[in-house]
């Protein structure tokens, strides 16, 4: 996942590289998601995350489109 200044930059990058256009998330929103996604990642009791748990995290942040479907 790469960093861009704007949607226009993403469009130019996908056109130039031929990479697919996916979805973009602002740093502000992604930081909140990161706290949920990575906040327990270094816990000694962390044992991975089920597909259902992954979906629950994405759902909580409104990431519910086909792009964010787990399987």
């Amino acid at each position, binding site marked *: *996942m*790469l*960093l*861009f*200044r*704007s*949607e226009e*930059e*993403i469009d*130019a*990058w*996908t056109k*130039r590289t031929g*990479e*697919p*256009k*996916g*979805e*973009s*998330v*602002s*740093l*502000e*929103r*992604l*930081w909140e998601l*990161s*706290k949920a*996604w*990575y*906040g327990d*990642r*270094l816990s*000694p*009791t*962390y*044992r*991975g*995350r*089920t*597909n259902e748990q*992954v979906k629950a995290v*994405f759902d909580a942040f409104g990431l519910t489109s*086909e*792009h*964010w*479907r*787990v*399987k």
Partner: protein
Amino acid sequence: MLVVPWSDEIVRGRNAVIRHLVQTGRMPSHSQLAGDLSLSEAATRSVLRQMHDVHAVLLGGQDQIRMLWPFSDLPTPFQVTVGDRSYWANCAWDSLGIPAALHTDAVIRAAFADSPGEALITVKDGKVSPGHYLVHFPHPVRRWYDDLVYT
């Protein structure tokens, strides 16, 4: 896609990697990890391969640990500084993942993908600034594990 919950052996191995990583900013060598786990290097490699198979780590050439999300063992365009220690993140998202995982403030230097220069991003007191830059996720989640380095 995901195999959970991880076995006790995998969790123990992963926790040993994390301890070394957080303290040093680097992944442990096989001999360092073997010492921490009180295992032979051959047995340590076996644990590492089990960890790789369930995506607890990503191994590179000669079974060296390349990623333990959100951390990278190799330098990347995403450098995260926490106090007097620096870490490499695997991608723009993971650069936020490091302070989230460590529950700490951080300064992130991240290259833009399609324009010169780099962003100086701060995480302080639970907020990120600037917040308007964008991280692009080119592939749908169900394809993330097809090629983790590319993703």
